[in-house]
Structures are given as structure tokens and as C-alpha cells.
């Protein structure tokens, strides 16, 4: 008989989901669900628990006052001093058969102290990424994911430095040997399970992870914000008591013994996808090829599983499942691990390959379709089948004409091809390879024609690259002149920029000159700093920038302002504070707006928008009516 102990404090919905999942999950192991109501401040929660207890589905212990998680856990463990115990947080969810697998893991060997399952949010036991809070993968619930773990990692247990408290199976022998949780030191929770596991480890017992169980954990419900402070205090006690804990943990994280069991599940997720799998092959550079690969991968997202193979900077071949919520990525040595790479790709069930480039990859990458028995497409982005230097340029500057190949060997003398080949060997290798392709796609007729003139029997399709429509909205350039220091309104400028960004106003601020502090600039904020200029160049700089309006933010009264003269000469609208020399100098100006010196940044932005609306044609100004 096993006791499943659930200390409860707050969070009705999460707690209901947790306890209902425990009650609903069929398990062969005989067990008793023990709920400790630690004086919950939510009467509905306590009431719901009482009903369950009356129905005889749970054993309920209710506290008159709040004693804390550790005391509750100890009480639960003390209830039946001969039983193993599972301590389960109230914000978890379990799946059918979970307890059987946890118990099997715990009984593998007599010296097991604790067993922890995989979870989405539980320190080093988290999946798919370690030590962070992960959402569940799209389209999967706890039961589906747990079933996957159960199948892929069947019977696998790994030693971990300490168990994790969200769901901790504790053997009775370990409690006997190491004693209960330390209430005095860890009062209301955090660190007590680490302390317990370290005591057990020092007594020669093992803390295991059951790699074939997944339990969902929401996290941070029971303690809320107070958690992080309490966590730091607990950490200090642990560090003092167990100086080996941090090194052990660091060592464990460095070795990542759980990594392969996470990735096996990832791989299995991929294998179960009903979509066809396409393997893209490309290089590791940026630019058009990468853009196309990304565009295409996004375009195919809901229609196919895309894997991308590219060279890694350490000389290995990198294969990655291109899906936002997947972590599946593997690296293979091109020589020693090529068979492993093939095993991996076969296991992934590749249906078709699509080459975009082969730069940086080993030659055998061309033979992959044969090895995998799949058809392949090729999209040409440059002239690599013809020219081992890819761009038909001998010197990197001029087009070489690139027809008969008679000068190419001497070209290769200076910079050999990436694989040891003469030009003839290179072309004949790629010629044969292109002939074997199901489709060879050229994005332009010009490229197709150049290919045809050298390799007339390669069947080429001219498909321009698919391009998504780009969002484009009108924007107005607001210029500030000179050295924008604090007294000239640098802080206000920052606020104006932040406000324009937050409200999506169609304004872009441009400082012709410099500012007195580093500011967030474009593309992170609608601001560009043009840099200092020499005075005689100001008029030319304004002409070059063609601003839609000028903004002055002086914080103290200006005595004259030469820069204002420059702004006025351009004939564009001027927005300035009603302060110092501005009112008298702008009196005659039709396009000027004066705002009171105490106006907020948002108010100034509104004044700019109003001024532009008043002085420009309505079609261009529709944008002003509806902020982006």
C-alpha cells in the first residue's frame, strides 16, 4: 500500500484538477489518497475536499491553523509508518499508470531513497528544456505525453543529485534512515526535499529519476511571489550543510545524463506526426538562402515536418527539427558518426529531401537520398553545380563569363574547391546529381538558362521564390537639431519615443546631431541618432534627411537658437515649447505649434500629430487617424 500525500493550501481549480487526475488514473498499485487541508483560506476548496472525504474517495486531515507545507508533508509521511509515500504538490496532474511505474522504479534496488518523474516544470527534471518552466507541446496533454515517456524510456532510471519536490516518491526505508523533513530549518517549504535527499545520499542511498513517467506541474501556486525570497534562504542553509551539493549539481548539469531521454521523446514525437517529413539541406551562412529556407519552412509548417541539415562550426553536421516548440537537434561527426546520422534520419522517417546548398558539408551528403531511399529536389541559389566558387567570379569582383570551364582549373589552384576535385570532377559529380533530382528549381529564368547552356539535359523548373507580403505603413520623420542634452530635453525625447512606440504612433524621431546618453534606437525604438555635424553642414544635413517636422524640447528659456533658424528656412512645420525666444521668433510662422512647457511627452506627441494633420494632405494622413 502506498500513500499519496497532497498538502493543500490554495488554488481551487488547480487542486481539483490534481486530485481528480489522481483519483481517475487507473493504477494496479494499491494506494490511499491522503489530502492535508492546511487551513485553506478558500472555503470552497475545503468544502469540496470534505465532500470527497465523505464519499470515501480520499482520507482528509484538516488543520485548524496553517502549519506550512513541511509540517503537512511530515504529517502525511507519519500517517502509516510502514508505507512508502508519494508527496504530490496540489498543482500537478498525473496520468494513468503513473504510480505503477514510479513504484517499479523505486523497487529496482533496495538502496533507492526517492524517485522523481519527468515534468514540464521541475528543475533538472524539466522537459523539453531543463531548468525552465515549459508549456506542454502543442496538441499534447499530460496523458499523451506520459504515454510517450512510458513507451520510449520504458524501465529507465537515472541517478540525480536530489529529488524534486513537486512529485517525490519516498521509500519508507529512506525515512527510517534519514529521518523526516526538517521543519525547523525549512518551515513553510522550499529546500526541505533537497535537505532530505542529501541526507539520504550521505547515508548511501540513491535518488532516481523515473524516465518513463511524466507528471504535469503548473508551479508557483502554493507560495506565490514570496517563493523567491524563501528559496534564497533555503539555498543558503543547503550550501552550508552540504558543500558537495552545488558541485554535484554543476557536474550533473554539465554531464546532462537526462538529455538523451528528453531527445528520444522529441524524436518519437516527430515519428508520430501524421505529416510527411522533408529534410532541407543548406549552408550555415545568412543571406538569401537562409531567408528562403526560413520562408519555406514557415510556409510548410502545418503541412509537413521540416528538418534542416546544415554544417556546424565545430565541423559536425547539425540536423534540427524546425518547429518552434521542439528541441530536437543533433550533431554528427561527418566521418565516424555518418552511420549514426543515417540511423537518425531513417528513424525520423524522412520522405523527401530538398537541397538548397551544400557548402560546408561533407561530400557524402550528396548520396543521402540514395542511402535513405528517398527522392530529392534541388533549389539553386547560386551556380555551385558549375562553379566550385559558387558565383562565377575568379577574383570575387568580376563576372568571369563562366561558360566553357577552360580557365577554372587555374582558378581552383588559388582557392581549391571545398571537396578535393578538379573542375571536371566537380561538374560531372554535380551534373549526375542534378540528373538524379526529381525537380531542379531555379528562381529565375536567367539562372535556368545559364544552367541549361552547361548542363542541357537537366530538367529545370523556373519557380520564383514565394514571398510573403511585407507590412508597410507610412511614418513621419520628426527631426531634432543639435546636441540634445538634458537641458535641451534629452529625457523628454526618450519619453516621447517610448510613448510613440507604446501607442504605435506613425512617428519616427531623428536627431540631426547627438544625444547625451545612450538611447534605445531603431529597430527597437522609433529613434535614429544621426551623429554630430559641423555647423556649416547643417542646412545640407536637413536637406538630406527631409524631415516632415522639427521638434524643440528646450527645458530652459532659449535666448535665440540658431538651429531654429535652420528649421525655419526649410519651410517645414516646427513644434516648440512656449518658452524663451520661441514664441516671438515663431509668431510669423504659419506651420508652428507652441506647447506649454509643462506638457507631458504624450501631450507633445499629440501636438505633433495635430500639427501634421493640419498641414498635410488628407490621403497621406489617414495613418494619423488610426494608430498602428
Amino acid at each position, binding site marked *: 500500500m502506498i500513500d499519496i500525500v497532497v498538502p493543500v493550501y490554495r488554488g481551487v481549480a488547480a487542486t481539483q484538477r490534481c486530485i481528480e487526475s489522481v483519483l481517475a488514473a487507473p493504477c494496479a498499485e494499491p494506494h490511499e489518497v491522503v489530502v492535508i487541508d492546511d487551513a485553506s483560506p478558500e472555503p470552497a476548496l475545503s468544502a469540496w475536499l470534505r465532500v470527497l472525504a465523505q464519499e470515501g474517495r480520499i482520507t482528509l486531515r484538516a488543520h485548524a491553523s496553517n502549519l506550512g507545507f513541511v509540517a503537512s508533508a511530515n504529517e502525511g509521511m507519519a500517517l502509516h509508518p510502514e508505507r512508502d509515500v508519494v508527496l504530490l504538490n496540489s498543482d500537478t496532474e498525473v496520468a494513468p499508470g503513473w504510480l505503477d511505474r514510479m513504484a517499479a522504479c523505486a523497487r529496482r534496488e533496495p538502496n533507492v531513497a526517492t524517485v522523481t518523474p519527468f515534468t514540464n516544470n521541475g528543475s533538472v527534471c524539466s522537459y523539453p528544456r531543463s531548468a525552465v518552466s515549459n508549456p506542454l507541446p502543442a496538441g499534447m496533454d499530460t496523458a499523451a505525453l506520459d504515454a510517450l515517456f512510458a513507451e520510449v524510456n520504458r524501465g529507465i532510471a537515472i541517478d540525480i543529485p536530489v529529488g524534486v519536490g513537486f512529485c517525490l516518491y519516498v521509500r519508507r526505508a529512506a525515512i527510517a534512515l534519514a529521518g523526516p523533513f526538517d521543519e525547523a530549518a525549512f518551515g513553510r517549504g522550499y529546500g526541505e526535499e533537497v535537505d532530505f535527499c542529501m541526507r539520504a545520499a550521505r547515508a548511501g542511498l540513491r535518488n532516481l529519476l523515473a524516465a518513463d513517467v511524466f507528471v504535469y506541474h503548473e508551479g508557483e501556486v502554493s507560495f506565490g511571489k514570496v517563493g523567491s525570497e524563501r528559496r534564497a534562504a533555503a539555498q543558503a542553509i543547503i550550501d552550508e550543510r552540504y558543500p558537495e551539493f552545488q558541485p554535484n549539481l554543476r557536474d550533473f548539469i554539465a554531464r546532462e545524463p537526462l538529455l538523451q531521454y528528453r531527445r528520444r521523446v522529441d524524436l518519437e514525437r516527430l515519428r508520430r506526426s501524421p505529416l510527411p*517529413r522533408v529534410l532541407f539541406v543548406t549552408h550555415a551562412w545568412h543571406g538569401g538562402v537562409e531567408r528562403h529556407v526560413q520562408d519555406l519552412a514557415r510556409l510548410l509548417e502545418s503541412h509537413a515536418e521540416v528538418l534542416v541539415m546544415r554544417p556546424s*562550426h565545430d565541423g559536425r553536421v547539425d540536423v534540427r527539427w524546425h518547429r518552434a516548440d521542439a528541441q530536437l537537434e543533433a550533431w554528427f561527426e561527418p566521418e565516424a558518426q555518418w552511420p549514426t546520422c543515417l540511423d537518425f534520419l531513417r528513424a525520423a522517417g524522412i520522405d523527401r529531401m530538398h537541397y538548397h546548398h551544400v557548402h560546408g558539408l561533407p561530400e557524402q551528403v550528396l548520396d543521402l537520398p540514395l542511402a535513405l531511399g528517398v527522392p530529392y529536389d534541388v533549389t539553386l541559389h547560386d551556380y555551385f553545380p558549375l562553379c566550385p566558387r559558387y558565383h562565377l567570379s575568379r577574383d570575387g569582383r568580376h563576372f568571369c563569363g563562366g561558360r566553357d570551364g577552360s580557365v577554372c582549373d587555374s582558378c581552383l589552384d588559388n582557392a581549391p574547391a571545398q571537396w578535393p576535385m578538379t573542375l571536371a570532377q566537380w561538374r560531372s559529380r554535380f551534373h549526375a546529381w542534378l540528373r538524379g533530382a526529381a525537380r531542379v528549381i531555379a528562381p529565375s529564368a536567367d539562372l535556368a538558362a545559364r544552367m541549361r547552356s552547361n548542363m542541357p539535359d537537366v530538367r529545370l523548373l523556373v519557380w520564383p521564390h514565394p514571398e510573403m507580403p511585407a507590412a508597410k505603413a507610412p511614418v513621419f520623420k520628426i527631426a531634432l537639431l543639435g546636441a540634445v542634452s538634458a537641458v535641451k530635453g534629452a529625457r523628454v525625447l526618450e519619453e516621447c519615443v517610448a510613448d510613440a512606440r507604446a501607442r504605435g504612433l506613425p512617428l519616427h524621431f531623428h536627431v540631426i546631431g547627438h544625444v547625451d546618453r545612450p538611447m534605445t534606437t531603431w529597430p527597437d525604438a522609433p529613434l535614429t541618432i544621426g551623429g554630430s555635424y559641423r555647423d556649416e553642414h547643417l542646412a545640407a544635413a536637413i536637406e538630406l534627411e527631409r524631415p516632415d517636422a522639427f521638434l524643440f524640447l528646450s527645458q530652459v528659456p532659449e535666448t535665440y537658437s540658431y538651429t531654429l533658424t535652420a528649421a525655419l528656412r526649410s519651410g517645414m512645420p516646427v513644434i516648440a515649447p512656449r518658452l524663451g525666444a520661441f514664441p516671438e521668433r515663431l509668431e510669423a510662422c504659419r506651420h508652428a505649434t507652441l506647447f506649454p512647457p509643462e506638457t507631458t511627452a504624450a501631450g507633445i506627441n499629440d501636438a505633433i500629430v495635430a500639427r501634421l494633420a493640419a498641414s498635410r494632405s488628407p490621403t497621406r494622413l489617414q495613418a494619423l487617424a488610426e494608430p498602428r
Partner: protein
Amino acid sequence: MTPEAYREQLLAPLGRRAQSPPAPLPALPPVIWFAPAAAGVHIGLRDLYAAGVQCGHGESLAALASEVATWDARFEAAQDNVSRMDAERAGLIADRERLLEALAAGAKELEQTQHAYQEYGRHLEGELDRSRARTRELEQSTFWRLTYPLRSSVHGAKVMLRSLRGVSHQARLMRPRIATAKHIAREQGMGELARRLWHKAAAGRTASERLVPRQGLEARIGELHVPTSDEPLVSVVIPTYGQDLHTFTCLKALAAEALRVPLEVIVMDDCAPQAAADALREVRGVRFVRNATNLGFVRNCNAGVALARGRYVLFLNNDAVVAPGCLDAMLRLFDERPDAGGVGAKLVYPDGRLQEAGAIVWRDGSAWNDGRDRDPRAPEFNYVREADYCSAACLLVPRDLLLALGTFDERYVPAYCEDADLCFRIREAGRKVYYQPAAEAVHFEGVSHGTSTGSGVKQHQVENQARFFERWRGVLAAHRVNGVLPRLERDRNAQWRVLFVEACMLTPDHDSGSLRTWRLIEEMHALGCKVTFVAENLEKREPYVARLQQMGVEVLYAPYVRSIRALIEERGAEFDVVVLARYYVAAHYIASVRRYAPQALLVLDTIDLHFLRQRRLAALQENASIAQSAEAIYRQEIECIQRCDVTWVVSGVEREILAREVPLATVMIQTNVHEGVTDVPPFAAREGIVFVGGYRHPPNVDAALFLAREIVPLLRERLPGVKTYLLGSNAPRAILELQAEGLEVVGYVPEIEPWLDRCRLSVSPLRYGAGVKGKINQAMSRGLPVVATTPSVEGMHLADGEEVLVADAPGAMADAIVRAYTDEALWNRLSRGGIANVERHFSRTVARASLAELLRLARKKREGKPRSAMHA
């Protein structure tokens, strides 16, 4: 086209996926899931500024920003460094003061000695004057006969005086040097003094002293992840005592190795004042173990081995930094040499000087680090060989062997001589200790010994050397006396020393002549020869040099050898056999070999008889000037044969010709070496016809042209669709232009075997030539039938119709090709017959027997003429 339409088109052939239950997941090694460490590319600030600020490159700008952000901290660290160095400098100045005092004391001692000599000299001069006076007296006396003994003593005194004057003069000149020498002799023993003098002399001989500095220490201890494995192949045991920056540098280098080799790393902190785990707390993946008390190097290492789980244990000093690929290279030796019980690395100093290429232990138990202070790229330090021992600064040993031997013997506690002793015990257990030059480690020697250093260390060294000598006295009796012939002592176990001189570097993947020589060298090596190979052009062509060196062959090359003549002059005395390949190479060096290596058996390897080949070309082309050159070659080649002890030919036919031409010469058949395969792809699985030939060999060019112009056109009609492939390196334009229907010029292929297994037939349409045809044996050894011309099968012991089809005219050739290509029963008979012929006449067994016979002749020669005293 809209994006959606593009997608439709792209996915059109795919359709919906058939869902079959997935097969079980394959076993995948965990290492594939580890992401590579961030690329450590260093770009200078100036470049980052230019690219980022001036050119507007975003990534450079970001890199500049993060680089600049670290700058203040780095400046502070540098300042700390400066103050630490100031302190060190103060220490060094104090040391220098002490040394100067010692030097002054030594000089004073020398002065006193010199003074004593001068006194003695004056005394002798006085004696001489007195003697002269008496001589004159006596000469004038009548007892002349009685004065003989006295006269002789006067002569002795003169000689002695002269020599004493010389000593005194030398002493004045050498005073500073002698003081150093005396110091070395007193502190480190006479052996060390001998070693230094030898290296001083050797350094003068070495042409190249261009040293390449190695990587230094990391700037500071930082974050590091060593991706160690749960199932390590190698357990790295690093004894430490402080020196954490060294340890960090050491671990950083290991981290890169760990991507290739599953490792675990155990740092054994020998109770240093600051715990290593603490100093290196940002290092992940490493197991830190701290001893409760200071155990000393020996016990600390032993404790580390007890914790190790890998199949191998690497002893690595914390001040040693492995170069990329070091572990692979060391492990490879265990794979390639089943008798390996220990493998050591090449240790270099940070400034690029060699520190140790294995160690030599002398008869008195003292040891030299072989190659110390020399150029680590010198050929003599770059081939795999046995070493008396390799330093435990970087020593790889199988763990089961260590456990069986009990690791380091505790009689050497706390340290010194334990590594030498371990290597001797490895040999006692029947295994060998190898030096692997391809594995390099930078060793900041003397920084740390993984134990507390202090007074009494020198004493341990002396005591342990005595213990070591006691323990191994019996074994050491067979070693040379300290400092005698280190070059020979280095390969003490070589039974024979063979010098092989060829025209060019061997390229066994390009031509069958190279392949033959390569395999002969392999066989010589297997027979216990130390082979020294040199190409006449002194080239160092990779990867062949490296492959030979890994086999254990000493390969010599420029600039370390200035010329073949200088080489023979300097080292001729050490060889038992000298092989000169090709008459035009041999002609230059026979005289040198006779003069400087009179003890050596001199072998001329004809490869194929050049004059014979040339005569046949002349006949084929009916060309008088070729005929004339053939006769010139004939005279030179025959002269070489007459002047050498033994001549190698590749076939019985050639031997018969030479038996007529040069009846007194000892001619041995040393033919090509091939291995017959058992797994032959069947008739039905093959297609195409293949011709193989290196086109530097003129008969092959003729044969390829003959095949393409006269035979392939016939085959186009009779075997439509069957392709003929021309393989081979260095194809001239005339061959490249042969490409036509049914004929493909493939050119050089790195591996020829796949072609021989894929094609159905090999042709050898040679119309002239001599020797044995490698292409035929190579084809036959893989069970590929051959259709050949009469000149091709000469000397090959092949029966027409059983092992080969022979035809000469184009029509007959085409007939034979069609028969063999289409008749499966015939094909099978030829395939089996060919393999059997290779086994009978061209196998390794045949080659080895013939080489053994050659070595018997060498022994006879050695015993007939006593070898020089050097070899005693």
C-alpha cells in the same frame, strides 16, 4: 505564384503519409545531442570598430559592445597580473643573487685549482732545469748508456708541461663554461652533462631551429563545460596541488577533446590550501576529489585510478595542455597495436621547444628526455616507436592493466621514477610502451607536480633513482652506458636498420609501384626492421609521410636533411641494409654507401627494368632515337646492378634476362604484394569495363589510347550500352579528350576497390613495358577477371583461358572481352583462377619469405665483416 500555390506544387508529390507503426528507436550515442561550444573566434578591437562602427555591420557592433563591457575587468586582472609578476621578479632577482654568489665561489675554487697547477708547473720547470743541468753533466760523462731512463723521464716532463700549459689556457677561456659544467655535473650527475653536450653538438647539426610557440595559459579562470560521458572510454586523472589557472587551461583543452572521445575527468586535489573545486567552481562536468591529507603524487594518482571507470586511464599533469586530436592519436595506437600497454605523447614547452619524445633509460638507471630542447618537427621525433618510458605528464594506459599492476609502486612515495617504473612493469607484463608523436601536449614542466613541493624533493629524486636502479638492474644491463649512441638507443629493440631511398614520396593510392614499396616496408617492419625512408627530392608529402610515421617508419625530409649524400655520410654506419630504388637514383649514391656504410647490404630495387621497357617502346614505335636512349639506360642500369650486393626485380622473366646479362649478380624476385579477397560481388551485380593506369608511366598512356581508338569502337557495336571507364591519376590532355560514347575518363579516384567490385571486366591492353602489372594483380586480387595483351601477362604466371584471357590484335581483344563479359561460367572460372594466382605468387607470405632471405644475407655480411666499434 502565391506562396500557397508554391506550397501546393512543392508538396504535390508527397501526399498524405502512410502511418505504419514506427520501428523501435535505434540506439543513438548520447554525444550527438550535445551542442558545440560557442566558437571562439577572436577579432581585435580595431577590426570590430572598423566593421561595426565605420561599416555599420551589426554583429560586429554587438561584439564590440560586449567586448568593451569586459574591458575594465580585464584591465584590473592585467594589473593584478603585473603586481604578481613584480613579486615573481623580486623572487627571481633574489635567486639570481644567490646564483651569482655560488658562481663567485666556483670561480674562486677554479682560481685556486689553477694556481695550484701553476705552482706545480713552476715546480716541474725547476725540476726540468735541474734535469737539464744534470743531463749536460752526464752527457759529458762517460756513463751515457746508463742515462737512458733519465732521458725518457725528461721527455715525459716536457710533454706534461706542455699539456699543463694547455689546460691552464683552456681553463682561462672556459672558466665560465666549466663553472656551469661543474655545477651541472655536481647537481644533476655526469649523465646530464653528457646529454647537454650531445645536444649542443646536435643543435649545431640541425638546420632548422625555427620554433613555433604553443598556446600559453588562459588569461583567467572562467566558465567551462567539459562534456563528459557517463560511459567514458577514457578516464583522465589530473593530480593537482594549487596552480588552478594551469588546471583550468588543462581542462579547457580537454573539453574540446571530450567532443570526440567519451571522457570522464577526475581532478585529484592533493589537499592544496585552496580547494580546486572552489577555485574552479565555474567548471562543469569535471569530478573534483579532494584528499583529506596530502598524499603525494604517487598515492594521489593511485587514488584517482581507483575512482576511474573508463577503459583507459590518462595520467595528465595539471600543467599539461593536450593539443587537438591528442587523445584520438593515442587511442588509435591501442587499436592498431594489440601489444600496446602504454602510450605517451610528445611533450613540448610553451615556447615550442621539444621537451620529451619518449625517454631513454641508461644502464645506470639514469634517464634522458629524448629530444629535449630540440625542434619538435624534426623527423627523428615524429615516428611511432617504443620508448623506455613516457612521462606520466601525459600517459595513457588501459585501466585493467593498471589494476593488474597496482598502478604506481608505493615504494616511490611521494614522487619520482614512478612513471619509469610503471612502464618497465608494463613491459615485464609482456606489453609495450609506445611514443605517439601525433599526440602533442604542451607541458609547463616544473610548475607543479600535483603535490606539495619543498625541501627534500631533490633527495626523493636521488633516493628513488637508487631504488629504481635496484629494482631493474637486471633489465638495464642490456642498455647502453649513459650518453652512448642515443640515436641507436632510441630504437633499441630494432633487429635491423634499413635505409630506403626512393625517387619520390610513396603514393600508394596513385601508382602500383608505390603500393608495392609500401607493402614491402610494412613487411620489413613486421620482421623487426626499423625502416628509415627518404625520397630523393626530400619532399614531405602528406598524408603519406604521416601514415608511414604512424606505421613506425622514420621518414626524413628537408630541411632536416640537406642531401642524401650528407645523410649517408652522417648516419651510414647505423644501417644493416640500404635499398636504393631505380637505377637513376642508385647511380648517384652507390659510392657514398660503399664508403660510409661498408657494413650494409646494398640493394638495388629496379621496380621494373627500365632498359627493357625502353627497348620495347623503341621496337613498338620503330624509333631509332628511343632505341639509342634504351642502350644508354642499359649501360647505366647494368652497371648499377654489378655494383650492388643484391638486385630486386619483380618477375621471373626479368630475372632470367639478368641471369644472361649479369650472371654474377645476386638477383632476387621481390614482387608486388596483393591480398586475395573472399567476398567477390557476383557476375550479375556488375557492369562496365575498367582500365586502370597511372599516366606518369608512359606505357599506360599508349595502352589507354590503343583501347579508346581501336577497341572501344568495336565494343560499341558488340556490347551496346556497356561503358568503359579509364581510371588513373595524372591523365594528360590526350587522355582527357578521349571521352566519347561508351567511354568515360574518370581520372584519379582515391579508392579503386569500389570500381573493381562494380565493374565486370578489367582490361590491360599494354603493348610494351616490363615488370609486373600492378593493375592486373590488383584486379585479380578482388576477383575481377582480366583480358590482357601478351606484354601485360609477361612474368605473371598466368594461364590463358584459366586465369586470364590473352589477345593482342584489336579484333581478338574485342572477341575476348565480349566472351568474358557475357559468359558467366567463364567469368567465374577466371575470377577464381585470378585470386588463386595472386595467392600463389603475389601474397604477403611470398614477399615476407623473400625479405627474410634478404635479411639472412645482411646478417652474413655483418658477421663476415666485423661491424664498426660503434655497434658493439
